[in-house]
């Protein structure tokens, strides 16, 4: 295991204080950006680092910053997405609770890079500790002239608004989040227009995940070349992996992008939680990403490799299932989540999620027919790619992959008229 970079501070006493953060080089990146570099230089530096967004899609962060128009007469906004709600994901919470200044410094640098005078941090409503830690960090930073008017004596000023969500997964989707900040239901918007052109309050907006912004200070402090050395080709930098489910030590683990999935499961997380039970399946990137069978799961955990293996790195929420896990029941659980979290605005997702729940529940309850198994795939196909936002895909991908990869379990449920694993916990 390599030395932690992102989590270097974490676990230390008072890791959340400004003093502690500064003692290990904190805010040096900001100082360098503001005093030695133009906003365009900062964008260039981040491009060179190869940093890809940690919110799910892995979009190159510097490129995204470059999309924000420089000559707009409207204000520009920077948003940090701390809605972290994808099942199996809990890394942003750790960063905010234990290293809030790293998040804050990243937001300030990002805002400077795109020319934003106001930034928004949207924290999932349930995360009270994160909110308190970030609020305290903001206060400290203001007092130290790291935030507010004339940051570090420069001509650059920035105000940060802290927002708390109120219980809606869909507000993690970037445009749903903007609607939510605007005081509305978190309905994702049609794209185009994209947020870089028409975002929050109708103004050019950039949005990044918490972990993404937490990488930025490192890049500015130690330089893009140093950063680009970490990880693997086109997938640079350190990454936080969230391990949950049937592992001995669920938790957040840092490793360079491209770490072996089995290293994460068997070394970092200590292997299966119950002796003697074998790995059955892994969801590598949060519950919306296609499931992998045990025999296809010894892969490199970077954006491109996971995609090549037929799934997605997503939010790196690794959900591990051993032999006692029923794949029908697990799919049912996932489908219920998305049905509950669908914003309800577009037809395929609103109607389709619940239909899928109904079909899979009837299979799990032993009332399914074999035609129902194909129906799951087919209904999922009628949702996939046909919705306003990617939540539709998020429900269709697990539905299709569970059925394709564990079809025998679905068939067994139909044949036995029930779940053979019920009560196996």
């Amino acid at each position: 295991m390599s030395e932690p970079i992102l989590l270097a501070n974490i676990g230390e006493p008072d890791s959340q204080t400004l003093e502690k953060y500064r003692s290990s080089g904190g805010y040096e990146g900001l100082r360098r950006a503001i005093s030695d570099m133009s906003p365009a230089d900062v964008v260039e530096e981040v491009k060179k680092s190869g940093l890809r967004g940690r919110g799910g899609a892995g979009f190159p962060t510097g490129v995204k910053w470059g999309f924000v128009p420089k000559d707009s007469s409207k204000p520009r906004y920077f948003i940090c997405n701390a809605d972290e709600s994808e099942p199996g994901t809990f890394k942003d919470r750790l960063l905010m609770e234990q290293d809030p200044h790293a998040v804050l410094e990243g937001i300030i640098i990002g805002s400077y890079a795109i020319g934003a005078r106001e930034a928004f941090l949207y924290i999932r409503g349930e995360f009270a500790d994160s909110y308190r830690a970030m609020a305290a960090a903001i206060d400290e930073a203001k007092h130290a002239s790291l935030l507010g008017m004339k940051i570090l004596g420069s001509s650059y000023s920035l105000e940060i608004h802290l927002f708390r969500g109120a219980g809606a997964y869909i507000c993690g989707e970037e445009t749903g989040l903007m609607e939510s900040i605007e005081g509305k239901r978190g309905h994702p918007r049609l794209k185009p227009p994209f947020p870089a052109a028409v975002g929050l309050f109708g103004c050019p907006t950039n949005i990044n995940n918490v972990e993404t912004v937490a990488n930025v200070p490192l890049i500015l402090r130690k330089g893009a070349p140093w950063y680009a050395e970490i990880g693997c080709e086109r997938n640079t930098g350190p990454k936080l992996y969230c391990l949950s489910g049937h592992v001995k030590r669920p938790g957040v683990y840092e490793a360079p992008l491209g770490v072996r999935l089995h290293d994460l499961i068997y070394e970092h997380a200590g292997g299966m939680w119950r002796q003697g039970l074998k790995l059955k399946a892994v969801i590598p990137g949060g519950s919306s990403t296609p499931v992998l069978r045990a025999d296809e799961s010894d892969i490199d955990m970077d954006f491109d490799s996971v995609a090549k293996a037929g799934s997605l790195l997503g939010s790196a929420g690794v959900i591990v299932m051993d032999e006692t896990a029923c794949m029908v029941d697990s799919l049912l659980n996932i489908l219920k989540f998305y049905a509950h979290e669908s914003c309800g605005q577009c037809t395929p997702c609103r109607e389709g999620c619940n239909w899928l729940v109904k079909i899979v529940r009837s299979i799990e309850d032993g009332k399914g027919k074999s035609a129902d198994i194909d129906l799951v795939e087919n209904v999922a196909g009628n949702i996939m790619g046909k919705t306003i936002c990617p939540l539709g895909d998020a429900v269709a991908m697990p539905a299709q992959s569970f059925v394709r990869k564990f079809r025998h379990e679905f068939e067994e449920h139909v044949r036995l008229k029930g779940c053979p694993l019920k009560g196996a916990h």
Partner: protein
Amino acid sequence: MISEKTQKKIESIASKLPQRAAAMLSALRLIQDEIGHVPPEEREWLAGKLGVSPAAVEAVLSFYTLFRREPEGKYTIWVCSTLPCALRGCELLMDHLRHALGIREGETSPDRRITLKRAECLGGCDRAPVVQVGEDYHDVLLDLSLGTAKVSFERVEALLEKLT
């Protein structure tokens, strides 16, 4: 009606944002913190305050799961039941809480102390099965010492005892 202090706080939030309506979620939270839920009178008041229609407030209030349109118990126990918690026995925990409290999901205990609810992924999967009470997460309600998931009655009891 909410206290003058809360009213002022809401006004101050609204006045600092690019658009007043952006204070919606914060304001609803403040109202709920004070009253326990958001009654119709306060919803209409807020609509006026933020310059939106009452229906727009209702639309928001009914969208987010943390907002309450009706009074609930003094404490709400949210039992996470999404996959990572389900894999680690949240249903056993839910069963246990139902029995211990003598209520079903979504119900409030007769003494109006506790409301029991099912939550979707709380982002606390490292502590699965996790429950949230008020602002706090509580973990390891299961006794894993035997190598199988088992509800630790003592821990659940200890938690419930704190909720007075």
